[in-house]
């Protein structure tokens, strides 16, 4: 079942930090969780939503180069101003959740957001 970022935002009650206008159009192909940029660059796949607690500007560059559909920042952290600016420029939606990454993933799975191999 493919969901859009907007559906995810509504279901998980996420706060929008940037590019709110893109949420309805972005479909989510799956999910990736990780905070080590080298891992994300190596394994994340196009169209996945990236769940991370990192908030610095590099996350935008990574999301952009891997063509991820968006970023969910967890633990209620606030992305840095420079990050948000860059995200607007690169059209990368950033959403924020107060929950931990484990709990965000749990809810994404409940919504049916799975990767090709299946959860």
């Amino acid at each position: 079942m493919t969901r859009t970022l907007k559906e995810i935002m509504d279901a998980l009650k996420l706060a929008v930090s940037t590019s709110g206008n893109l949420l309805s159009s972005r479909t989510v192909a799956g999910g990736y969780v990780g905070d080590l940029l080298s891992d994300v660059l190596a394994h994340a796949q196009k169209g996945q939503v990236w769940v991370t607690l990192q908030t610095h500007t590099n996350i935008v560059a990574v999301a952009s180069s891997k063509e991820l559909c968006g970023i969910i920042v967890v633990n209620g952290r606030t992305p840095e101003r420079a990050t948000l600016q860059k995200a607007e420029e690169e059209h990368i939606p950033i959403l924020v959740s107060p929950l931990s990454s484990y709990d965000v993933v749990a809810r994404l799975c409940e919504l049916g957001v799975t990767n090709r191999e299946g959860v």
Partner: protein
Amino acid sequence: MKDSDLNGTLQTPPTQEMIYELRVQQAMTRHVITVAPEETMEDVSRVLEENRHTGMPVIKWQKMVGIVSVRDLMRCFREGRSLQPVSQWMSKDVATLYADEPLIHAVQKFERRGFGRFPVIDRKTKALVGILTKVDIIRCLLRNLEIDYHDLESRQYIPTKWFSELDCDRTTLSFRYHIDGANFEKAGEVSSKLKHNLQALGLPPDAIRRIAIASFEAEVNLVIYTKGGELAARVEPGKVTVSVVDDGPGIPDVERAMQPGYSTAPDWVRELGFGAGMGLPNIKNCTNEMKLESKVGEGTNLQFTVFT
């Protein structure tokens, strides 16, 4: 004193858990007397008698080929064949235990197979390393129970009595450690040592956890940003105070540094798993008091207290 009284006051340690935790190698007898298959049962009887054993493994070319017990001996002697070789009387169906198996496996095997002893072999090399009997198990449990009792006693004793028994206006115990800057392999080692010391003193586990976490964060900060520094922990009745000092480079904006998520860590540090910007806020959250002073070019002095 009835058993129930003892249980009530001393909080018997969980022997059931002990059976899962202790390994066969901790209970077994390492010195194993063995016999070759060509030797006679007469020889065997002499060896068993001298050593007061009830059985022994039969070894040929360093491999265990069987086991011969007192029972085998009795049958043999009853038939008057004591000069026959061991190979004809030994039991070839040998059940063994691995040295690293938990004792519970041994207990289960004893129940299931009804043997009196098990040879113990090394999981990797398959060499014979020892022998285990039921008596060995009991002895090992008793030995560990005694240690546990002492542990319990000392834990109950030290925080309440130790300080008050020493005749002094004020008693403190202090630990000092050096933290190497840029040594990422070892980041956490000092906090780990401090934690063990505090556990040996019998401080409450929750306080120890908070002290350990705060120390760990401070230690990691020193490793990432400085050339090294000193961590000193002072233990007194009611609280532990830790001070972490370095002499550079200093924190330019302390207030910003205290914000969760704010980090000045370079990218390569983040790839090592650090630099999430939670260090100082974590310290603040898990300690009762915290004081941070820093001057660029001179260094940083962090002090925190956890009430015990």
